[in-house]
C-alpha cells in the first residue's frame, strides 16, 4: 500500500515538474509576443536548438576511440545530409542514415579490432 502510494506520488511529481517547465513561457511571456526580442528568439532559436540537438546526439551516437574517430556515426550523419540535399525527402534521408548506422553498429565494420 505504501509502495503504490510512493509510486503514484512519484509519477505525479515527475509529471508536474515536466509540465511546469513546458508551461512557464506561456504563463509569463504571453503578453509580450509582439516584442521584437521575443520575435527574434522565436525566429532564430528553433534553428539553433535543432543544430544543437543534432550535434549533441550525433556525438553521443559515435565511438570516439583512436581507431573509430567517431566515423561510425559521422558517416551515417553525412549520408543523411547528402541524401536530404539531393532529394529533399525527409523519410528517405532518415531511413538511409539509420540503416547505414545500424549496419555499421551490428557488423562492427568501422569499429576496427572489435
Amino acid at each position, binding site marked *: 500500500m505504501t509502495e503504490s502510494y510512493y509510486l503514484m506520488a512519484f509519477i505525479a511529481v515527475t509529471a508536474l515538474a515536466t*509540465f511546469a517547465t513546458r508551461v512557464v513561457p506561456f504563463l509569463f511571456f504571453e503578453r509580450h509576443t509582439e516584442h521584437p526580442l521575443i520575435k527574434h528568439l522565436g525566429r532564430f532559436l528553433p534553428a539553433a536548438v535543432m*543544430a544543437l540537438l543534432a550535434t549533441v546526439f550525433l556525438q553521443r551516437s559515435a565511438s570516439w576511440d583512436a581507431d573509430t574517430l567517431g566515423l561510425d556515426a559521422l558517416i551515417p550523419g553525412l549520408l543523411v545530409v547528402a541524401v536530404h540535399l539531393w532529394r529533399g525527402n525527409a523519410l528517405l534521408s532518415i531511413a538511409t542514415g539509420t540503416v547505414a548506422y545500424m549496419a555499421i553498429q551490428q557488423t562492427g565494420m568501422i569499429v576496427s579490432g572489435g
Partner: protein
Amino acid sequence: MNQNVFKLTLPILFGYLPLGTAFGVLFSTQLDYAWWIAPLMGLVIYAGAGQILAVSLLAANAGLLEVAVAMLVLNARHLFYGLSLLGQFRGAGWRKGYLIFGLTDETYSLLTSRARSGDKHHEQEIDFRITAFNQLYWIAGCALGALLGDWIAFDSTGIEFALVALFIVLTIEQFKALRNTFPIWAGALAAGAAMLLIPATHQLIAAIAIVTAVLLIQYRYQSDSALEPEVSHD
C-alpha cells in the same frame, strides 16, 4: 487530414517506438511494478530523457523533492521552446493545454519547421493532432517494451539513430526556411563548447543557455546598428 499528419509524424514514429521500447525494457528489468505503469508514465509524464532518469530514481527510492529538482533541471530546456510558439498557440482554446503538455523535443521540432497556411485554427488543429499522434507512438513504445522485457528477437541495435537523423534533417529544413547560417553555427558551437566543458547530464541545458545568450547578444548588436525596429505585419 489524419493521413497527412501520419506522414508528417512518421519519422517520430521510428524514433519514439524504439526509444519508448527501450524505456519499457529498462522499466520492466530494473523495477518490480506492473507492466502498465510504463505506458501510464508515457501518458501522464511524456518525456523521453525524464522517464529514463525516473527509472533510476525509482530504483533508488529517491525522495520526492530530489525527484522534482532532478526533473526541473533535466527538462529546463523546455522553458525555451515555448518562447517560439507563443503566438502560434494563442487562441487555441481547449487544445492549448494539451499542446503545451505535449511539447517534447521532437514535437517542438516538427511544429516549428513545418509549412503553414494562413488559416490559424486549421493549423492549430493539425498541431494538436501531430502532438496526439506523437504521444500515441510514445505510449505504444513504452507498453511494448515493458511487455516484451528483454526477449526481443529482432536485432534493433542502432535504430535509435533515427532521432539523430531527424534532428539533422530538421536543421537543414530550418536553414532552407531562414536562409541564414548564423543560428546553425551558433547552435553547433554551443553544443561543442558544452560537450567539452560540462558533464553529460547538464550538456543540453548548458548548450541551450549558451546559444540563447549568443542570440541575445546578436539581438543587442542588431538593434544598436539598425535603430529602426522591425515592422510588424500581423
